[in-house]
């Protein structure tokens, strides 16, 4: 992590192109939704002035929409409108409605009664009164509503990046997942500036005197539409395939940066949150996504992993790591745990994950079925020769592994077992291990290398050329630094991976990332 000692300014210079694109997307998103909100909100506001019996209902609904947390509202939109700009614009539009409707309503109601009466008494028709008297006089209040809506939209639009609609949120959320302060600020400062600038500009519009009002009324829609175009123009530059990467993947050397530098991969990329990415690929909104190679969703959505033929993703082979003193205390532990070694490859692990994550089968059942099928299962011996304590991190794959180990120990040795599953992230598990609170847990070579040993980029480059060199390096280092032993790898590699829909990959003849690059270059 220490290599990112660059200043914010350096980061901004380096990423100027991206920053500009995101800023324009952000402005576009904000104003397209604002435009539509004005087109919808203004007539609605006028309607409820005329038909007061609807005022409560309309303002009530708009008010309720406003209270829905923005991230939840974006979530509601996905099943209806998929991912991308459409649902983001709709969500932003719903947020902008309330201030516009409410201010139109109160603005028109607030017009001096004597002025309205004079207008009626002079023989103006309803529409003449609306356009010549009520709307011009309510304009400052209506503009105040538009101003509020704009500032809200600039803020909420940062969340649009989570559903692949772009905007400055890409930097903000990427920065948060990468713990990269410069990246966060490169997104946060421009979006805050946008909010302040638009607020200032609109406040000036709001204070315009009646003399200039006419010009403003004509200029404003033109300006709005120009700002909207910011979004539409960059959106045009589309390749044939679309990739969706998580913010974290976008900023990692063993992610998008590596894809660009080592493979020279140039693909139209949108940033999207992990939670909706797989489904979006399945629904053909995306063609290539970043994911984890043993994720159960691979199977659930019929995706295939592209072979990383230039090895930019460091191997994340799983193996049990055990404290040396535990191995001494339970001499039969090592051979027992090694029973599983080489038995589970990527596709097997994917299926097992699929059964727990998607079919919602219990990890015990999945573990037992596997052991039985591989003729490893033995009934419990019911021995009482000391207790082996097993730990696991807090996700399905680790639960399954912990259960398998527990069954193996009970079947093959006389030890008792206590499992401490769900120990949160790497740090909690590893601390529990070094502090003698557990005896072993399954760990991944990549995690050991990057998260625990925090190896320098140079070392990482050197040792990640193949699975054995990585394994050997972490094994050596753990032994000397922590007196912890890496047992034999279980077989599967839960690394970052690029994936595509199986059907499409087969049709286009893409098996490796190099294939993908060749395909894209042909276009």
């Amino acid at each position, binding site marked *: 992590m220490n290599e990112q000692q660059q200043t914010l300014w350096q980061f901004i210079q380096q990423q100027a192109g991206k920053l500009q694109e995101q800023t324009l997307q952000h402005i576009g998103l904000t104003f397209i939704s604002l435009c539509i909100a004005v087109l919808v909100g203004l007539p609605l506001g006028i309607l409820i002035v005329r038909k007061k019996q609807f005022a409560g209902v309309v303002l009530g609904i708009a008010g309720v929409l406003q209270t829905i947390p923005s991230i939840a509202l974006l979530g509601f939109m996905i099943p209806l409108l998929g991912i991308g700009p459409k649902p983001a614009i709709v969500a932003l539009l719903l947020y902008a409605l309330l201030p516009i409707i409410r201010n139109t309503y109160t603005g028109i109601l607030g017009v*001096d009664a*004597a*002025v309205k*009466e*004079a*207008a*009626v*008494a*002079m*023989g*103006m*028709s309803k529409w*003449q009164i609306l356009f010549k*008297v009520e709307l*011009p*006089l309510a304009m400052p209040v209506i503009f105040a509503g538009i101003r509020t809506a704009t500032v809200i939209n600039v803020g909420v639009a940062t969340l649009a990046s989570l559903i692949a609609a772009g905007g400055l949120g890409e930097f903000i959320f990427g920065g948060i997942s990468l713990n990269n302060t410069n990246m966060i600020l490169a997104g946060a400062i421009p979006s805050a500036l946008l909010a302040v600038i638009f607020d200032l500009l609109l406040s000036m519009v709001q204070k315009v005197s*009646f*003399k200039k*009002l006419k010009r403003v009324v004509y200029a404003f829609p033109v300006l709005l539409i120009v700002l909207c175009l910011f979004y539409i123009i960059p959106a045009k530059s589309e390749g044939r395939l679309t990739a969706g990467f998580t913010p974290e993947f976008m900023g990692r050397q063993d992610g998008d940066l590596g894809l660009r530098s080592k493979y020279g991969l140039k693909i139209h990329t949108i940033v999207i949150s992990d939670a909706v990415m797989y489904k979006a690929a399945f629904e053909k909104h995306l063609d290539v996504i970043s994911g984890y190679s043993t994720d159960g969703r691979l199977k659930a959505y019929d995706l295939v992993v592209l072979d990383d033929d230039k090895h930019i993703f460091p191997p994340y082979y799983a193996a049990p790591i055990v404290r040396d003193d535990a191995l001494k205390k339970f001499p039969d532990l090592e051979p027992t745990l090694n029973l599983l070694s080489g038995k589970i490859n990527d596709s097997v692990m994917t299926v097992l994950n699929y059964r727990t994550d998607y079919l919602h089968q219990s990890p015990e059942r999945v573990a037992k079925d596997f052991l039985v099928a591989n003729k490893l299962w033995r009934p419990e011996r019911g021995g009482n020769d000391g207790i082996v304590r097993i730990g696991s991190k807090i996700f399905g794959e680790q639960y399954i592994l912990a259960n398998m180990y527990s069954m193996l120990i009970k079947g093959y040795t006389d030890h008792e077992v206590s499992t401490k599953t769900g120990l949160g992230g790497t740090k909690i598990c590893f601390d529990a291990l070094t502090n003698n609170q557990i005896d072993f847990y399954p760990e991944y070579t990549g995690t050991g290398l990057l998260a625990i040993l925090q190896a320098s980029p140079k070392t990482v480059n050197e040792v990640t050329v193949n699975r054995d060199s990585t394994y050997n390096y972490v094994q050596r280092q753990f032994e000397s630094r922590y007196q912890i032993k890496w047992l034999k790898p279980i077989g599967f590699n839960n690394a970052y991976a690029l994936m595509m829909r199986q059907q499409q990959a087969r049709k286009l003849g893409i098996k490796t990332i190099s294939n993908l690059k060749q395909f894209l270059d042909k276009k």
Partner: protein
Amino acid sequence: MIKVDKVSKYFGGVKAVDGVSFEVGEQENLILLGTSGCGKTTTLKMINRLIEPTKGSIYIHGKNIMEQQPEILRRGIGYVLQNNGLFPHYTVAQNIAVVPNLLKWDKQKTEKRTAELMEKLHLDASYLNIYPNELSGGQQQRIGLARALVSDPPVLLMDEPFGALDNVTRSKIHAEFKALDELKRKTIIMVTHDVQEAFELGDRICLMDKGKIVQSGTPAQLLFNPVNDFVKDFLKHQRLQLEFKAIKLIDLWELLPELNKEAKASSFEAGINLWEALESFKFNNGETINISKDQNQIKTVSFEQLMTAFYQYKNHQAHE
């Protein structure tokens, strides 16, 4: 000209106006007088259909107003509000041009008429391009009057038109109001709660209370022949001044001594009221004034002679 026939307006269970009938003749000034909540403003607003009557009918020029499209009806009736109701986002010129634009006058005609009215109302032409909030209250009220008069409607409705002005401005505007030839041709219905104003400007007065007309007649009739104590009490305040305003010189004509015309004194028409005649002694240094009736008969009177005639007239009224 205008006939209001048994008109009522109920707001829910409240009878704001209850069976009111009156007629206003051509070029007559009718004042609807009363305290707040007596129904006078509601009555006025029913005439241009700002408020629709619950019962009864109203005729202008013999035509039932309910049978006309309200917008068309209103464009033919001038309306002046207490708080002027000028459009704050329009310049003075644009404000005055509202009705001409609705009537689709050409620009030149509107400009010419506007300039004419500005002059008659003693408003500087430089005001035309400024906004109403840059003018004083009295000036705004004059612009409001110009807006109502611009299309020269035969009927003018005025809702407490001078109510928001201070006393000095108000009496100045009263004087202009009476002098304005435009208004002499108009049938005017004006609402006020100010008794002095009613006596000064009204040809006839309808005194209203609780939605009904208590008494209607000339100022003198109300003053000297009140139908009940309510009318008497209503006019009790500053009674002497009211009497001076209610009595016209023509009423005193028979009681004034026959005297030949004195050349030096200033002359007045017999149609003015006693108050104006008495006030003139203050401003003109002469001992006497000339009063002319029907162009050819002239009497020259002094202040004392006028007062003597006034007391004789009052005595006479009281015994009638």
